């Protein structure tokens, strides 16, 4: 189900109330076009992840419409969700395997993805011997094998340390500049949001509504030093302000 106006992913008046009566989302509408990287920042538990689950079809919204091609959707989970009994190579291969790619093709895609995330040399390691950052890279590589035109990121770097996180951000940015997919990223880190995105939406506390949105004017490719630019700080400040308003 592709969208009609060129958007890769669009939400129209999405509301979500769980069977237990919890209202998670209220009237959320926005879209992401190819080549756009949209981030949603919001307080914990505001329904951000629910939105991704609705986009991917894991959950069904109470009302509203989603338009997206679910056939080749990239979904990066909060945890690396690697299968502990598979090596890095076998883990990266999983999605291509589930989607029925032939072995020759699989091998090529896996090798390419592993190189891309810098895990060369670790193909035969099991997850238990990898650091948190490396696990996340393997998880990214697994998604990359499908070359998804739409990428959903569910707070993927929340569990790694600050330095690794900055580096993973730079790598995500490189991937985006290279592949130009439509990206939807969930986070509660404002600097991460500004650094990566073309647009940042601020979501309120539960039930989640979009209360503000900011275009990020910095052109790609972006340098890591962008974080120290005064305009970067200024924009971050504005978003923080909007986020504080959204909290209360």
């Amino acid at each position, binding site marked *: 189900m592709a969208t009609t106006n060129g958007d890769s992913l669009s939400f129209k008046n999405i509301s979500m109330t769980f069977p237990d009566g919890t209202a998670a989302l209220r009237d959320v509408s926005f879209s992401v076009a190819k080549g756009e990287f949209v981030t949603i920042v919001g307080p914990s538990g505001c329904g951000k992840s629910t939105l991704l*689950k609705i986009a*991917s*079809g*894991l959950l069904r919204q109470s009302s509203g419409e989603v338009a997206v091609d679910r056939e080749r*959707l990239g*979904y990066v*989970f*909060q*945890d690396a*969700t690697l*299968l*502990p*009994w*598979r090596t890095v190579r076998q883990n990266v291969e*999983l*999605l291509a*395997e*589930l*989607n029925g790619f032939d072995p020759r093709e699989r091998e090529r895609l896996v090798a390419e993805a592993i190189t891309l*995330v*810098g*895990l*060369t*040399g*670790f193909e035969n390691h*099991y*997850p*238990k*011997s*990898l*650091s*948190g*950052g*490396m696990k996340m*890279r393997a998880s990214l590589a697994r998604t990359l094998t499908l070359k998804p035109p739409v990428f959903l990121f569910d707070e993927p770097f929340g*569990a790694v340390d600050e330095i*690794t996180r900055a*580096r993973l951000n*730079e*790598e995500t940015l*490189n991937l985006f500049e290279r592949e130009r997919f439509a990206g939807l990223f969930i986070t509660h880190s404002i600097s991460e949001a500004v650094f990566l995105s073309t647009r940042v939406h601020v979501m309120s506390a539960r039930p989640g509504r979009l209360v503000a949105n900011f275009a990020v004017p910095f052109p790609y490719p972006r340098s890591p030093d962008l974080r120290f630019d005064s305009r970067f700080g200024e924009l971050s400040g504005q978003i923080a302000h909007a986020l504080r308003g959204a909290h209360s």
Partner: protein
Amino acid sequence: MTQNMGPATEASGMGLAAQVEAATLAERGRGRTAASFLPPVALGGLIIGAWYLVTYGILDERRRFLLQPPHEVWKVGFADWDNFSQILAGLWSSTQVAIIGLLISISIGLVLAIIMSQTKLIERAIFPYAVTLQAIPILAIVPLISFWFGTGRFSRVIVCVIISLFPIIVNTLFGLQSAERDMHDLFTLHHANRMTRLRKLMFPAALPAIFAGLRISAGLSVIGAIVGDFFFGRGAAGIGQLLQRFANRLLGEQLLASIIMSSALGVAVFLFFGWLQNRAIGKWYEAGPPTE
């Protein structure tokens, strides 16, 4: 190019840290074997000392047959080949019964647990009966077993199955349900069917629990084979029958030797399944909470 430098450096750094950690652990492990070897050996010595004390210090000559000294047990029970080969034959017969019983338990247990894992309804239907099976006092159904199946080897196998089945069902079921929610979501997103999900996610995730269950059940199956011997004595004599026979004929040395050999069998089974588990899943499985 510069972009790839980062991860590679971090990665090799991590590799080194991991190696150092592994080396330290190995070091500590080696130190521990030396240090952990001594106390049990010393205690073993004390126990043998106490044994001699009881034999020669407490029991008078008329009653010494109740507890022969260790060296007599060794001489009569182990060093005398006629006696020892009889014990070994009995042990082997019981081991066969235990293995057959365990294999049947594994087959039934795995199949039942897999079926139960597929539908909540079936799980709810079967579970109470699995618990009941566990709660059956084996003595209570001994008459029924001999009534139906006679007093031969087959009845002994049934005893093994009854007491070793439950841990396999419960552990396998628990293991099959242990895969994380996110992993299931991942499989759902990519349209994995029931069989693929079972084969590539649930079953491998269940392996650590299955091996834990196997270890328990194997021990129980050995006990079942010996207990079964007491009630169902037809056919090749198992170690349980020998124990009874030696006790009845007041052959203390052989009785003690048989008990020691039965215990050795239990320990061997426990070690074997530990080894098997390590062989099968040691490469990827880490016991306890993941270190992150």
